[in-house]
């Protein structure tokens, strides 16, 4: 189902699937990308001077710039900009619904590639990467670290898991938020096929805990376009009641529901200052990542919303 993809693109998801080695996949995806430096969300602990601020009671005395005091007889403290110690936590949804694939690559596999590629990028910057895998429960939680082995952990965790239907996304996100000690960039990779309010409640929790939340809404192209013809029987991956119908005749209703859902989700994310991106699993990973990083850099000041 990737006929529309360029045939010469060696990074299309199906080719990557055949590579097998996730680190190799991540390297293939990331190498060549122009990776920009990340600004630390924590200021004051770095050695790089940012600007002065008038001393206020409670400030550490070692931050007072004595040279400025000598010239002006006033106390100013020096503020520095931290350049590292950036934690990125990857949250991968491994519920049953993520196993859907209209082509050869399921959403879960695509999410795996996506997570590995992001981890590779982060680790290359000497930053730390943490990993959480969840379905109806949190199956795996790995605190952030800066070793490449985390990429192998992603593969292992996802291979071992037996997907179960997710019940409440908010609960898992709450649980994961409680596990995370430091504020970090949280990347949620999920199809988010759940109640919108439930999803937003979970994301809000992360956001209120001070995390910078990025949602990569991963959907199959068939889920986005519903291009079925003839008579089909749809059997839910998460135990829903099956439906036999002629999809082309109910396509409008389906797309209408999808649109309403995505609009609500997008609006909720904007309201909560959460970056939101729709990821079509038929698109090449490098293109998606490149566009993601460019967008992220240009919207560093605030949350961004986009479709990839």
């Amino acid at each position: 189902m990737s006929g529309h993809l360029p045939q010469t693109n060696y990074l299309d998801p199906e080719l990557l699937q055949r590579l097998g080695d996730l680190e190799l996949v991540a390297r293939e995806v990331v190498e060549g990308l122009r990776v920009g430096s990340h600004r630390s969300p924590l200021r004051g602990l770095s050695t790089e001077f940012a600007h002065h601020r008038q001393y206020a009671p409670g400030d550490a005395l070692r931050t007072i710039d004595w040279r400025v005091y000598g010239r002006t007889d006033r106390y100013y403290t020096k503020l520095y900009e931290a350049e590292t110690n950036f934690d990125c936590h990857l949250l991968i949804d491994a519920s049953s619904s993520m196993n859907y694939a209209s082509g050869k690559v399921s959403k879960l596999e695509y999410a795996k590639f996506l997570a590995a590629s992001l981890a590779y990028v982060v680790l290359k910057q000497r930053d730390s990467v943490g990993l959480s895998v969840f379905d109806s429960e949190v199956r795996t939680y790995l605190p952030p670290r800066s070793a490449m082995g985390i990429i192998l952990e992603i593969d292992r965790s996802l291979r071992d898991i037996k997907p179960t239907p997710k019940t409440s996304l908010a609960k898992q996100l709450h649980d994961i938020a409680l596990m995370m000690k430091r504020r970090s960039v949280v990347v949620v990779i999920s199809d988010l096929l759940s109640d919108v309010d439930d999803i937003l409640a979970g994301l809000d929790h992360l956001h209120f805990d001070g995390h910078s939340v990025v949602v990569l809404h991963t959907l199959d192209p068939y889920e986005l376009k519903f291009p079925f013809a003839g008579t089909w029987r749809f059997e839910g991956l998460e135990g829903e009641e099956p439906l036999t119908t002629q999809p082309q005749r109910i396509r409008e209703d389906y797309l209408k529901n999808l649109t309403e859902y995505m609009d609500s989700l997008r609006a909720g994310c904007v309201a909560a200052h959460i970056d939101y991106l729709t990821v079509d699993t038929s698109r090449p990973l490098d293109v998606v990542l490149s566009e993601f990083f460019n967008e992220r850099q240009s919207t560093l000041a605030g949350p961004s919303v986009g479709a990839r």
Partner: protein
Amino acid sequence: MTFLNPLLLLGVLGIGLPILAHLINRQRIKRTDWAAMQFLDRSVRVRSRQLRLRDLILLLMRCLAVLLLVLALARPATNSADVSWMPGEERAGVIIALDASFSMQHSDGKATRFERAIEKARIISEHIQPGDPVSLVLLGGEHRVVLRNVAYNAHRFAEVLSEQQAAAEPLDLDSVPKRLEALVQDMDALQKEVYIVTDTQAHDWGRLSSPFQDALRVLGQEASVFLVPVVGSDENLAVTGMDLVSGALRKGSIARYRATVHNYGKSPVSGVEVRCRVEGVQIDSRQIPLIPPGSSETVSLFVPFYNAGPARITAEISGDALATDNVRRAVAEVRDRVSVLCVDGSTGDAGRLIRSALLARADGAEDEDFVVQSVQWPDFPAGDLGQIDVVILADVPEITQEQASQLSRYVRQGNGLVWFAGDTVKASKWNELSGEGDNALLPASLGMVVDASDNLGVGKPLDPSMPDHTVCRPLLSLPEDLLSETRFLKRLQVEPADTSFLVMSLAGSHSPILLEHSLGRGHVFMFTTSAHTTWNNMAQTPVFPMLMQQIVTYLTGREFEQPRIVGDSLTLSYAKQPDAIDAVFDTPSKQTITVPVRQHRNGYVALLEKSREAGFYVARVSVQSPGMPIAVNVITQESDVACVTTAALLESLEGTGITVSATAADLSADINTARTGRSFWRFFMLAGLAVLVIESLFADRILARNQSRRDQASPLPQHGEVA
């Protein structure tokens, strides 16, 4: 309810097609796991169920449309009143049989019976629905189907009706039910109606035979049969006969014809003038003072022949209600001269007596154009006999094989031979050379001479066995005692052939005296007695000259001089194969009919199978050849135009189930009462088409709505369809 095209009901199986398509579509369900089930929510499921319901409705409508169309094509109809609530049409297949015999030309002064029959047919046609099958048949000697099972069109039917005319033929009533039954069986209609419009002549309808009534009953079981009488007065005069009585058909001579006029009415008719015309020119006229009802009167008409060749002779009356039978026709082939060769083989004077008889004239004058050549047997000419019209062999002992062949050929060419027995005749030789069967020269094989005298030694008198034979006819005008004076003492015992017939015999014994048979185009007369006075006293009485001259007149006549009756075949015979392959017959109405010449026995014949008109036909061997007229007369039986009364008719038809509609009002009322057949094909057809249209609109509406929704609510770029 019945179906006129029941086989088309097999089309109901066509309902299976939409059902099959529906089931196949349902069977080809593809299965897939699906994650985004939350978007296939309740509303989508409801809509999906609605779609299934619509599909089911469309399927039902298609099935219903197929069913209705199939029913319409099968042409449903019923006679039952139980379904009178259904919007059907009163339909019936109608067969109108018009009596077109010539009695229908009888006029009451305003209109002929046939014209009134046409008017009745128009009344019937007013009750026929456009498109209903209708047949029109003219009844006569041979029933002619003018329209067969055509879809009724009022204008066209009226046109066809106005073109019809009565023919000069009689009505063959016995064959009518069978003919109509065949037409009924040939017609596809729920209700079939047969209308017989006739003048109900008493001689036909007065005494209906049991087989005829049975046939009507059978017809009545297959169709509603209506008898529509168009009656008129009984008065009619007809010339029922005109025959040559005496005289020679020779240039310069006068022949006597006898015309018979019959009064078929119930009132005496006085002062009936009978006119005789030759080639259209009136040459004689006779007045009949009074003809009582039901009686015939005859008048003699004397016809002088001034020119040689065929002469058309008519006897006519006028001022009658039925003109067709007011004329009787005859044709005379008038010769320039007649040549007779008398071959005498006797030692006595038989030949002389025969010659004297042939030349005897009432006024004693000699007739230059009537030549009788007399030779003795040994001098029988061996060459061509082409100049001789009649050869008489009197007491010739024997003939050679060559002479037998020569005489046979001579007769076959259309000439005459008269054979007399005698003392010297060698029967065995004649039997040997005369031949057998159809090719025999003589009409009988010869036996021994037997005594024909009675106990008193007086011979037996003569008895004309065929009084209507041209040869016998003048003898009947003789006083009875004069005829009985002719006595026969001896005769030759003979064994008549199957092809011969007895013309005269001995009174009281049926022993043949004069036999006749045809050979080719000619005739042979055979006397089993001699002209010699030792055998009889015939030559001493007036009978002999009358008989001999009449025989010569008869033998020198031509076959087409014999009048024919309408319906008879007309033939033109050839001795040799003609150059032209076709002969031509001109009808009295100046139409030309070409008939192929076919070989028949030893000759060639052109046969016109049926003469349909009364009048003079003209037969030609080719278009350029001079014509030979043939008189064709109407059959006299049809001239009795008396009709049966309605009461008598009802009595005759009792138990046959036939409705008699005497008046126009009765006819309309009877039709309305009897017509209960209702056809529903149009209703079913319209209903089927309506369902198809509704189904089409319904389907289009669904498609249009879907397209509209697609156009309005497409949040993402369209994706190509997946097979």
